[in-house]
């Protein structure tokens, strides 16, 4: 019990937002940019990712607390620190972790001038909102909180492990507009969701007329957790079998879902470009290996009433405690269901407005006649980006200022400054290098945090290798 609580506390603190890849968004030198905006401009003729190495993405964050807050060197007792933190955090603070691994990624420009791209990636996504009242109840007990309604509705968490098969098309409609769309097939390996909970627990101090000193009441309690893919794993022996089973689900063996990404890029003037995308507009239909648990109750506990019955020789006293247990079981109804359920994917929205300036990239070529009608690509861009992801308790937003620059034919850099739920001092840097046909990139945000990861509330890192063949 004690070690479990410690583990939870440590996980909370070391875990972290949000799938925001603000550094990669808009980097047209990078094929993975198509996964952030299927309507991005595409300079290359074809690309394919080095299998398993084309995108490695790690992200963790927590909105209200970092490891340094709790474990930093200080003379204060750690329990006092945690207690103060519990009261400082709100039930809208959260802990998240995201990880993506691209398995396959490819794309090519077809004769009809449509750029087709597709691939497979695996994704892990977790979010836990801070259940403040429960934390107070666990940390302090109810003694100092008589008549206070502890809100169980603060429990809100989801977790998903899935593989995504995608295929998209991108076309430059005219000189100014490029649009794209991507279809996605989700294969969910594991999933759980506990949102839309409600109910309170209150210990009321009664007056002399009440049956007992207190009344412990569960009010309007309706809580549930939906799981898919978990029930059958409990029957398996050892991690080896679990791994094999999960691999099977990754290959269309899991619960399937459908989704779509849409995006567009529009050159407003020669220098100003707007772009936007909506990602993961879709749902997973959980039909297999589904198990849901729900608890509903309106129950008041007064303690055990002794009746002092007249017991004749050989008689036994009523089983008060067993009767109480039976009553609780009757009144606090726990249901296990196998209902199918549909789970919406967290929708992500990206948008940007960029101003291009500096040296024209086309000028360096022998002839720019082919592209003369389109806005000439410049070697520098500055602008703003917007990102949001829809989470159980509402959208999480991030705003980014960026500057990107192409230094030579083979190197482009982008710097970002992002304000989001975690911090207002998030600086990110990304680098894309084209060495021959090999395209390498590395992007990370919260660079200030790398000096001491303990002080960072979130970190995000992406890197990968592609083979890219540029257009003639």
């Amino acid at each position: 019990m004690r070690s479990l609580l410690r583990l939870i506390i440590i996980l909370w603190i070391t875990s972290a937002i949000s799938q925001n890849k603000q550094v990669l968004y808009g980097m047209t030198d990078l094929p993975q940019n198509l996964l952030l905006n299927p309507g991005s401009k595409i300079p290359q003729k074809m690309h394919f990712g080095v299998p398993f190495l084309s995108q490695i993405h790690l992200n963790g964050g927590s909105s209200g607390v970092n490891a340094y807050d709790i474990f930093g060197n200080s003379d204060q007792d750690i329990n006092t620190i945690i207690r103060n933190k519990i009261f400082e955090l709100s039930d809208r603070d959260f802990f998240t972790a995201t990880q993506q691994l691209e398995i396959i990624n490819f794309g090519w420009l077809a004769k009809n001038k449509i750029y087709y791209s597709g691939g497979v990636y695996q994704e892990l996504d977790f979010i836990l909102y801070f259940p403040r009242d429960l934390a107070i109840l666990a940390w302090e007990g109810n003694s100092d909180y008589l008549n206070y309604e502890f809100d169980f509705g603060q429990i809100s968490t989801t977790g998903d492990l899935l593989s995504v098969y995608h295929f998209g098309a991108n076309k430059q409609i005219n000189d100014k507009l490029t649009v794209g769309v991507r279809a996605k097939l989700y294969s969910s390996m594991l999933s759980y969701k506990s949102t839309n909970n409600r109910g309170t627990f209150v210990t009321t101090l009664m007056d002399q007329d009440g049956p007992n000193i207190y009344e412990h009441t569960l009010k309007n309690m309706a809580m549930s957790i939906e799981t898919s893919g978990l029930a059958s794993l409990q029957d398996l022996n050892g991690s080896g079998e679990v791994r094999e089973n999960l691999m099977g689900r990754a290959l269309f063996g899991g619960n399937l879902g459908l989704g779509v990404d849409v995006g567009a890029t529009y050159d407003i003037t020669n220098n100003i470009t707007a772009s936007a995308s909506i990602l993961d507009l879709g749902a997973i239909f959980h039909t297999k290996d589904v198990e849901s648990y729900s608890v509903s109750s309106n129950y008041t506990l007064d303690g055990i009433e002794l009746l002092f019955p007249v017991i004749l020789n050989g008689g036994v006293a009523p089983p008060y405690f067993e009767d109480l247990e039976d009553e609780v079981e009757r009144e606090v109804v726990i249901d296990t269901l196998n209902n199918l359920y549909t789970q919406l994917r967290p929708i992500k929205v990206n948008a940007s407005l960029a101003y291009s300036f500096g040296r024209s990239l086309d000028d360096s070529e022998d002839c720019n006649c082919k592209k003369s009608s389109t806005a000439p690509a410049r070697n520098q861009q500055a602008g703003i980006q917007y990102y949001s992801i829809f989470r159980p308790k509402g959208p999480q937003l991030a705003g980014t200022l960026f500057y990107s620059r192409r230094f030579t034919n083979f190197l482009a850099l982008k710097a970002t400054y992002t304000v989001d739920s975690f911090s207002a001092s998030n600086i990110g840097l990304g680098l894309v290098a084209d060495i021959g046909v090999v395209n390498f990139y590395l992007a990370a945000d919260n660079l200030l945090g790398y000096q001491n990861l303990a002080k960072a509330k979130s970190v995000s890192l992406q890197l990968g290798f592609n083979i890219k063949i540029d257009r003639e």
Partner: protein
Amino acid sequence: MKTSLVFTSIGVFLLIVFFSACVKDTDFEKANNIVLTPIVELDLLYFDLPAITFFDTATSIPVLTVRDTTDLPFLNDAEIRNNLKRAVFSFKVGNSIQREFQVDFEFLDDQNQVTSTIQIPVAQGTVSNPVITEYTENFEGQELINLTGAGKVAVSVTIASSNANLDGSIKLQSKTTYYLEL
């Protein structure tokens, strides 16, 4: 030339950032000192006995003591025994019967041996003016170990004397404050 210098310096900067990434000025050993110390208030037993309980009208004989027993399996639960540091029992007895009472709690182990007792003397009251007796008992150290050896409690209510004309009732309310360390 200029661009390659920029390239090199930025590349070097990135490398320094990533390879110097570290976690410092922290002491994760502190996790071993994390202790949860909730104080939990929980109702225990209650009863409300009319005066007539203490007189058998069929035989016209006073019933001076009534007794009842209930299991309290959570008391000697291994988890509770490991984590409970202190327990305080609080009682509130309202008496509107014109007699003094004594309420005895005997905590019994599985062999029905008494491990702990609580004795509450109750002052007499009247129907128009019930008297409330409050009583607390603190269990710590060896006393707590004795208490948590028990899994049930026998409650005896003893009246000083009784007849058919007594009015009113004796009403007992109780709660326990558990000081836990997890």
